[in-house]
């Protein structure tokens, strides 16, 4: 029993409510509390990363021990795959809170903004750490409802319409997830993820579980913005304030979408070939259609939002290819390489997409526009922003030596070894089209000649924004070290092992 696991959920909750009480009386208290809370969470998550070398950590809420080896408590589980997503959430949360210190000057009601940001971080930490299906649903709702309110934060016409569309589709997806959870409870009479796996090993009726799997793919696929369910993403991510766009597109669609799909389909259900082919097809469609919809966009943040759909397609396609190889029962080392490539691309995308949205926010803060045709010639006057956005554009297009090149290389090599030649060809074509799209962004925003700006001088952005962008640009270079064998054994290989060998996961939690 490890007492630091509930601190990840209890600390941001306490911070959010303290900000709401004392923020009315003391000025600038909200900046201080949110900065201290996110810094402590970031340090704790790095400490948990070192701590999990000893094995899987469990926390039973209330201290209820199992009765006749049936688990009756609510379990919170910290293993090697959760700790990677936990580090991403807390580090990008800290960077986003630091960036908001100067970005938020154009809004009133600053207390509500910081309280909602802390609640969103608390909800996402809860989703990643939970080992119980209904607990996952409750924390999913906490984080997603906070994001609905944050998208509608500057109350203009576009933000309210985007938030309403996002809410209706998000609530429908949550209802489908709740229906799936109730059907699982009906068949197996238990809610613990490891215990459901143990019951499913003995009895398994195919049509019933196919229905539940389709419900889960629809529900969580809508949260992760895969292709038939992507209609809310361009409006919501382009209308939110820029640090919230970086959090939403960089962390939320991963922590409550892709992480839960990977966790449930590897560690809870048995992998069948039809579901694996379905997941791979959805990933491939997202990858291709996302990038072809993104080329024709002239609004900067809508362009970045459509590219999010495409990069998430890379991750899902790679994980799906690994599932196909596992379900056929041959070449387990190629499957491990594919899944490792998917998780590596997940980490990279959080960093460079967050950096791109922060750059878009910096450009909008100084020039007041988001249209690419109205910008131009910003490179001499905003040197830090243009340098970091050049690094981020090179990362997302897959140019060495930045981190995007290594993760896409691992995905393409795994596809070739597993004889999925068509998928490898599509991945290369989509990468070239992404490069073209970002060359357009660089040229129109930074290199063109400057339009007349009606005597409005443009300087560099204030210091907190420059510092947060520089930290993310440093991580873009440093994360390419994850491809080398020594570092990969320490970070990525334990995560892949805990996913592929799900009997060890069940054994360590229930112990039978």
């Amino acid at each position, binding site marked *: *029993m490890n*007492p630091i696991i509930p601190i990840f959920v*209890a600390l941001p*909750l306490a911070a959010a409510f303290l900000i709401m*009480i004392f923020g009315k009386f003391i000025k600038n208290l909200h900046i201080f509390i949110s900065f201290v809370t996110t810094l402590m969470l970031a340090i704790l998550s790095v400490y948990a990363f070192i701590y999990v070398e000893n094995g899987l950590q469990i*926390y039973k809420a209330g*201290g209820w021990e199992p009765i006749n080896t049936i688990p009756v408590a609510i379990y919170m589980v910290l293993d090697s795959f959760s700790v990677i997503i936990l580090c991403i959430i807390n580090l990008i949360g800290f960077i986003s809170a630091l960036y908001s210190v100067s970005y938020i000057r154009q809004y009133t009601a600053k207390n509500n903004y910081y309280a909602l940001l802390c609640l969103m971080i608390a909800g996402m930490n809860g989703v990643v750490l939970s080992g119980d299906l209904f607990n996952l649903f409750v924390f999913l709702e906490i984080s997603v409802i906070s994001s609905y309110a944050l998208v509608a934060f500057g109350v203009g016409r576009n933000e309210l319409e985007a938030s309403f569309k996002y809410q209706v589709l998000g609530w429908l997806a949550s209802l489908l997830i709740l229906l799936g959870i109730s059907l699982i409870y009906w068949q197996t009479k238990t809610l613990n993820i490891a215990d459901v796996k143990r019951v499913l090993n003995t009895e398994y009726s195919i049509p019933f579980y196919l229905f539940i799997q389709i419900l889960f793919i629809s529900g969580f696929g809508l949260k992760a913005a895969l292709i038939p369910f992507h209609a809310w993403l361009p409006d919501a991510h382009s209308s939110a304030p820029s640090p919230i766009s970086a959090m939403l597109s960089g962390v939320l669609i991963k922590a409550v979408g892709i992480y839960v799909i990977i966790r449930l389909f590897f560690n809870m259900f048995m992998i069948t070939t039809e579901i694996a082919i379905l997941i791979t097809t959805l990933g491939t469609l997202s990858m291709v259609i996302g990038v072809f919809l993104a080329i024709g966009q002239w609004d900067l943040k809508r362009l970045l939002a459509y590219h999010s759909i495409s990069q998430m397609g890379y991750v899902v396609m790679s994980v799906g290819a690994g599932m196909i190889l596992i379900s056929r029962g041959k070449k387990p080392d190629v499957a491990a390489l594919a899944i490792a490539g998917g998780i590596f691309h997940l980490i990279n995308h959080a960093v460079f997409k967050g950096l791109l949205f922060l750059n878009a926010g910096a450009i909008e803060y100084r020039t007041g526009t988001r249209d690419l045709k109205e910008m131009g010639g910003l490179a001499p006057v905003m040197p830090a922003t243009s340098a970091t956005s050049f690094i981020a554009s090179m990362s997302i297009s897959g140019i060495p030596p930045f981190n995007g090149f290594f993760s896409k290389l691992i995905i393409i090599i795994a596809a070739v070894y597993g004889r999925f030649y068509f998928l490898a060809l599509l991945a290369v074509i989509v990468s070239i089209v992404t490069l073209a799209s970002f060359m357009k962004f660089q040229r129109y925003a930074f290199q063109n000649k400057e339009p007349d700006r009606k005597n409005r001088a443009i300087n560099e952005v204030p210091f907190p924004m420059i510092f947060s962008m520089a930290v993310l640009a440093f991580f873009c270079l440093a994360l390419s070290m994850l491809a080398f064998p020594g570092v990969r054994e320490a970070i990525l290989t334990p995560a892949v092992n805990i996913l592929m060998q799900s009997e060890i996961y069940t054994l360590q939690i229930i112990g039978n």
Partner: protein
Amino acid sequence: MQGMSVIVKKVTQLIAGIIFLYGIYIIIHGHLTPGGGFAGGALIAGSFILLILAFGSDILKLKQEETGSSITENIAILMVLLIAVMGLLFGAKVFFINYLPVGTAGKLISAGVIPLYNIFIGIEVAAAILTIFLALVIFKEESTK
């Protein structure tokens, strides 16, 4: 905002106190009969909303009331977290453990720390629903001025 007619005002004067007492009864007996924190909190909020709708109020008093209920809601949630954290200090180091003595089944003062949770959750739900109602009424009053 205006109040309602004389019949509604008279009936409200008779009934609002009874609804408030019924809500408190459901909260306190949460471990013996169905109900608990959520249902009792919704009833208490209902009695306050009935008073505001029947008698009307001007906008300055509504704003003061919204500040008060918002602070009450946040303090009640912090008390729930505090009770959960105190489990770390007494005995085994877990959250949410039941550390007060558990009496016999069926009596009012029993079941450890659960009645305390019910009371604070009831206060929190009542204050939250009242804050939502007051925020919507203040927005409507300010936009039709």
